[in-house]
């Protein structure tokens, strides 16, 4: 069965409510939508940031996100998936990423949303730099081993 999979990599902000409406319009079989919104946080004290810039690999970013959305569709009975990932400069409080998963029942929607976020973190070609409020030199955000662990729990033979 083909289901709507929407993947966008864009500079501009997104509207989660509008995207949810578009995903569920005229789809009476949908009983659950899980929505995850990743937001730029400010950080604490010396590490507080004034802005963050997301670099991406155009073309591969879309391909990689779509590949994982297709994988999610194979694993769970989903009715639709929307993933929007922003690039460029954002400030604390701004949206970064939206994942919407729709399904007749909640369990598939929850699990698929978590699966997609875990894989986006470790496999989608995006890199963040932070500009510190302290005026220190911009720093590249380091990858976290717990993100790798979160992604690896979904691996299967």
């Amino acid at each position, binding site marked *: 069965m083909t289901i709507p999979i929407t993947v966008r990599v864009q500079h501009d902000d997104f509207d989660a409510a509008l995207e949810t409406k578009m995903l569920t319009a005229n789809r009476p079989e949908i009983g659950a939508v899980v929505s995850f919104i*990743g937001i730029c946080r400010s950080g604490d004290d010396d590490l507080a940031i004034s802005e963050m810039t*997301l*670099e*991406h*690999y155009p*073309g*591969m*970013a879309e*391909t*990689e996100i779509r590949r994982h959305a297709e994988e999610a569709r194979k694993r769970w009975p989903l009715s639709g998936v929307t993933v929007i*990932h922003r690039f460029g400069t954002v400030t604390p409080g701004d949206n*970064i*990423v939206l994942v919407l998963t729709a399904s007749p029942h909640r369990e598939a929607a929850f699990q698929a949303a978590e699966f997609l*976020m875990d894989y*986006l*973190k*470790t*496999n*989608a*070609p*995006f*890199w*963040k*730099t932070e500009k510190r409020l302290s005026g220190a030199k911009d720093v*590249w*955000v*380091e*990858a976290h081993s717990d993100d790798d662990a979160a992604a690896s729990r979904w691996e299967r033979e």
Partner: protein
Amino acid sequence: MKVLYFAWVRERIGKAEETIDPPAAVRTVGDLIGWLTQRGEEYARAFDRPTIIRAAIDHAHVKPDAAIAGAREIAFFPPMTGG
């Protein structure tokens, strides 16, 4: 073939992309990293921890033992931090 660099790999090398023509003995992604490393100090610095560098051939993630024959575009970048 075209080679792309991202994030701090790009910063250290000082360019986002270039076209290269490595000798035939350079067969894999790992070989290519070794060959690039010898091109100058900026490359040596970008690849000073080769095991953490990730690579993609034509938009798909690959391991260091992947063959580069036929590749149109090879990208090198640090571990990803999206989401």
